[in-house]
C-alpha cells in the first residue's frame, strides 16, 4: 500500500527539482494531447518550444514578453514571501497602462528627455494607487486580499474599457476604441536596434536583482520572510504587520504599474483594450515556478513568455487554438503544486494493516 508520510525535514532537492519535474510532466501531457488531436506531437512541441526562439527576432520577442511578466512577478514575490495573497497584479498592470496613457496623450506634442520619465512615473503611481486600495482594505478593514484584489482587477479592466471608449478615445480613430499614438519622446528606447525589444526588459531584470538584494541583504526583507513563515513570531519580535503589508503591496503595485506603463510606451505605443493577455495572472505562476527567488523568477518568466509566443506560433503553423497557451500554463501550475507536495511528504510502501478481528474492542476499530 502506498502511504504518504511527512518528511522529518523538508527536501531541498525536491524544492528545486519540482519545477523541472512539472515541466517534464506538462510536456508529456502536451505530447499525448497532440496525439489525441491527430497532430504530429514532435512537430507540435518543436513549434511551441523551439521555433519561436530560433533566431534573434524570436529571442527579442521572448524578451518583450518576459519584461511585463518579470516586473509583475518581482512585485508579487515580495507579497507572497510575506504570505500576502495579492492576486491583483493584473489590475495594477492595467491601471499602470491607463495612468501612463492618460499622461502620454496630454504630451503628444511635447519633446525632451523628461517626457518618458513623467509618463512612466504616472504609470507607477497609478499601479501603487490601485495596490494601496487593497492594502488599506486589508490593514484597516481586514478584508481578504484575494477577493478585494480580484474585484479590483475587474474594476480596473472596466475603467480601462471606459477610458478607451470615452475620454481617451482617439477622435480620428475611425471609431476604434483606442487612444491616439503617443509622441516619439514618450516611447521607450529599443534595446536591440531592428527588433521590438525595449528597455522594459532591463526594468524587469533590475526588479529581479532588487528583490534578491531585498531578501538577502536588508532588514525589511528579513521581516517580510519572518512574517510569512510565522505571523506570531513576527508579532513577538515587534515587526509591524501593517507597515510590512503596505510595503509589500506598494512594491507590487509599483512594479506591475511600471510593467503596464512599459507595455503601452514600448511595443504598443498607444492604449488599446487588449493591452494585457493576462500577464498579471501568469506572473502568479512565474512566482510559484521560480520558487520566489530572483534567479528562479527570471528563468520562469522566460519559460512562460515562451508559452505566449509558442501559442501564437501553433496558431499560425498548425491551426491550433491560441488558448493552448492558457492550457499549458494551467497544466504547469497544476503539476507544480502536485510535485510540491513531495517537498514535505514522501511516499512509503507499507503492507496493508490487517483489520482487527471481532474480538478486539470497538475502540481499536475506531483508531484504525
Amino acid at each position: 500500500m502506498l502511504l504518504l508520510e511527512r518528511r522529518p525535514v523538508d527536501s531541498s532537492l525536491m524544492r528545486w527539482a519540482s519545477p523541472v519535474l512539472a515541466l517534464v510532466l506538462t510536456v508529456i501531457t502536451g505530447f499525448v494531447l497532440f496525439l489525441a488531436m491527430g497532430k504530429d506531437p514532435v512537430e507540435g512541441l518543436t513549434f511551441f518550444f523551439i521555433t519561436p526562439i530560433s533566431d534573434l527576432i524570436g529571442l527579442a520577442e521572448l524578451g518583450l514578453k518576459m519584461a511585463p511578466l518579470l516586473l509583475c512577478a518581482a512585485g508579487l514575490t515580495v507579497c507572497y514571501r510575506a504570505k500576502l495573497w495579492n492576486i491583483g497584479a493584473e489590475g495594477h498592470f492595467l491601471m499602470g497602462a491607463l495612468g501612463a496613457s492618460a499622461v502620454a496623450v496630454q504630451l503628444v506634442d511635447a519633446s525632451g528627455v523628461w517626457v518618458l520619465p513623467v509618463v512612466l512615473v504616472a504609470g507607477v503611481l497609478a499601479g501603487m494607487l490601485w495596490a494601496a486600495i487593497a492594502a488599506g482594505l486589508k490593514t484597516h478593514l481586514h478584508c481578504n486580499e484575494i477577493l478585494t484584489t480580484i474585484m479590483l482587477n475587474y474594476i480596473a479592466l472596466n475603467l480601462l474599457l471606459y477610458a478607451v471608449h470615452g475620454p481617451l478615445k482617439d477622435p480620428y480613430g475611425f471609431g476604434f476604441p483606442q487612444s491616439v499614438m503617443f509622441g516619439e519622446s514618450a516611447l521607450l528606447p529599443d534595446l536591440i536596434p531592428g527588433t521590438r525589444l525595449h528597455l522594459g526588459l532591463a526594468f524587469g531584470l533590475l526588479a529581479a536583482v532588487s528583490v534578491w538584494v531585498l531578501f538577502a541583504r536588508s532588514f525589511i526583507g528579513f521581516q517580510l520572510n519572518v512574517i510569512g513563515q510565522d505571523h506570531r513570531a513576527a508579532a513577538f519580535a515587534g515587526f509591524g504587520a501593517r507597515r510590512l503589508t503596505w510595503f509589500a503591496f506598494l512594491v507590487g503595485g509599483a512594479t506591475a504599474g511600471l510593467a503596464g506603463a512599459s507595455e503601452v510606451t514600448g511595443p504598443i505605443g498607444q492604449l488599446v483594450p487588449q493591452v494585457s493577455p493576462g500577464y498579471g495572472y501568469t506572473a502568479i505562476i512565474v512566482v510559484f515556478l521560480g520558487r520566489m527567488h530572483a534567479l528562479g523568477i527570471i528563468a520562469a518568466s522566460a519559460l512562460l513568455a515562451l508559452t505566449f509566443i509558442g501559442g501564437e506560433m501553433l496558431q499560425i503553423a498548425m491551426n491550433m487554438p491560441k488558448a493552448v497557451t492558457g492550457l499549458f500554463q494551467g497544466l504547469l501550475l497544476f503539476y507544480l503544486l502536485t510535485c510540491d507536495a513531495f517537498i514535505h511528504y514522501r511516499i512509503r510502501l507499507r503492507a496493508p494493516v490487517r483489520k482487527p478481528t471481532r474480538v478486539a474492542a470497538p475502540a481499536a476499530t475506531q483508531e484504525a
Partner: protein
Amino acid sequence: MELLTNILAAMVVAGTPLLLVALGELICERSGVLNLGQEGMMLMGAVAGFVVALTTGSLAVAVFAAVFAGIGMALLFAFMAVTLAANQYAAGLALTIFGTGLSAFVGAGFVGESINGFERVAIPLLSDIPVIGRVLFHQDLLVYFSLVAFAGIWLFLHHSRGGLLLRAVGEDPEAANANGLKVLVVRYLAVAFGGGMAGLAGAYLSLAYTPMWTENMTAGRGWIALALVVFATWRPERVLIGAWLFGAASILHLVLQGLGWRASTELLAMLPYVVTILMLILLSFDPVRTRLNTPLSLGQPYRPSH
C-alpha cells in the same frame, strides 16, 4: 407594478448562477475546505454544457455533462488539497487558472455558435399568484432546481445526521477523526458536491442566461460567490438573499438604461465588483460574528495521523 415584476424576475435569473455556485461552496467550506477554484469549475461546466448541448441537441444530457465536468475539476482540486494536503489557496488558484485555460481550449471551435437554451415553464396555479408567481414560478427549470437545492441544503445542514457530520469535520477534523469519522472521505464528497454545483452554475450561464459560449463568460461570478458565502456567514438562507441582491446589482445597468439614464456601460458594469468590495467592508464592522460562524478548520489541510 409590471416594471417591478419584470425587474424582480430578471434579478432572480441573474442571481441563480451565483446561488448555485455559492450553495456548493457553502457545503465545501462547511467541511473545512476553501476552494478558490470556483471560477475554473464554472467555466468548465459552461463549456462542457454548451458543447454537449450543441452536439447532442439534448439540454438534459448537457446539464449532466456540465455537472460531471465540475465534479472532475473538483476531484483534481481534492487530490491536491485533501490527499496531498497542499496549500488550499494555491491549489484553488491553480484550478481557476487551469480551468480558464482548458475551457478556452475546448471551446475555441464553438465561439459564435448558438443553441436553443432553456425555456421558461410556468408552474400551474403557483404562477398565477400576483408578482411572486411571475418572479419565482414562471422561470426555467434550472431556477426551480436552484430553489429545490436551497431547500435541500438547508434541511441537510440543520436537520440531518449527514449535515451534523459535515459540520463536525469542518469545525474540528481531529476530534471527528477520533470519533471514527472518515474526515478525508467527507471532505472529498463536499468538494465534489461543490464542483457539481459550480458546473451546474456554469451550465446555467451557457444554456439559459446567454445560450452561447465565450471565453471567460463567468466574468468573476465564481469569485463573487466566494465573497457571498463569507458575507452570508455560511448560512444557506442568507446565501439565497445575497445571491438575488447580487443579481439585482448585476442587472442594474440594464434597468437604469431602460429608465433612460445616460451612463457609460463600462462604468455601470463595474457595479457587481464594487458591491462585492463594499460587502467585504461591511463585514469588517462585525468581525466577531464572522469569526464565530467561520468553520474552525477552514483552509487548513488535515492529515489523519493514523
